[in-house]
């Protein structure tokens, strides 16, 4: 199980700011595949993924209870 937080545009597109995925995910890439299947309308290539509040790469492993964030292009300032 991982906890997923969604922000900005992605939050509106998935329709919620926080949800869980019960399926086991090996790494960030598996998560991307899962999300692309579930939400094909979102352009995932422009969405960064953070694991436990750090930007993550595709090969980074996921663990039970990780806090995942879906980060569309940032626009602070």
């Amino acid at each position, binding site marked *: 199980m991982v906890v997923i937080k969604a922000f900005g545009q992605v939050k509106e597109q998935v329709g919620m700011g926080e949800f869980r995925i019960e399926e086991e995910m090996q790494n960030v890439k598996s998560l991307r595949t899962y999300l692309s299947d579930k939400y094909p309308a979102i352009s995932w290539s422009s969405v960064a993924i953070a694991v436990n509040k750090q930007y993550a790469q595709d090969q980074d492993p996921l663990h039970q209870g990780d806090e995942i964030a879906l980060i569309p292009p940032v626009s*602070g300032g």
Partner: protein
Amino acid sequence: MVKIVDTIDLNKLYKDLVHPAAGGLCLFVGTVRDNTESKEVTDLFFETYDEMAILEMEKIRQEAIEKWKLEKVIMVHAIGKKSVGEPVVVVGVSSAHRKEAFPACQFLIDELKKTVPIWKKEYFTDNSHWVSPTP
């Protein structure tokens, strides 16, 4: 000092930034502009991933401290709804000599806009959208 706040008070931030060994400080204040690509903007709404935004701002702050000789460095971003003319972000540095202050301050705001998880929704007279900066 890095912080997410509801409203920005420059006189307070001056006190956080001033230092007895500093001869000056440079501040950049981001404000709400009334237009974007020639469309009239009425308000902005800012959302952040608070805890990660703090971590990312702290990274940028440390990088600036390594690159320049600075006394103090602050990064403060506001959240919520902001109207035209209101301050939404302040970054600033104090340093013994002003030569360091300008590039260091510009670095802070340039980096903030690249990596800190904060999002801006623009409200127009007829609709709204999340801003997606073109690279």
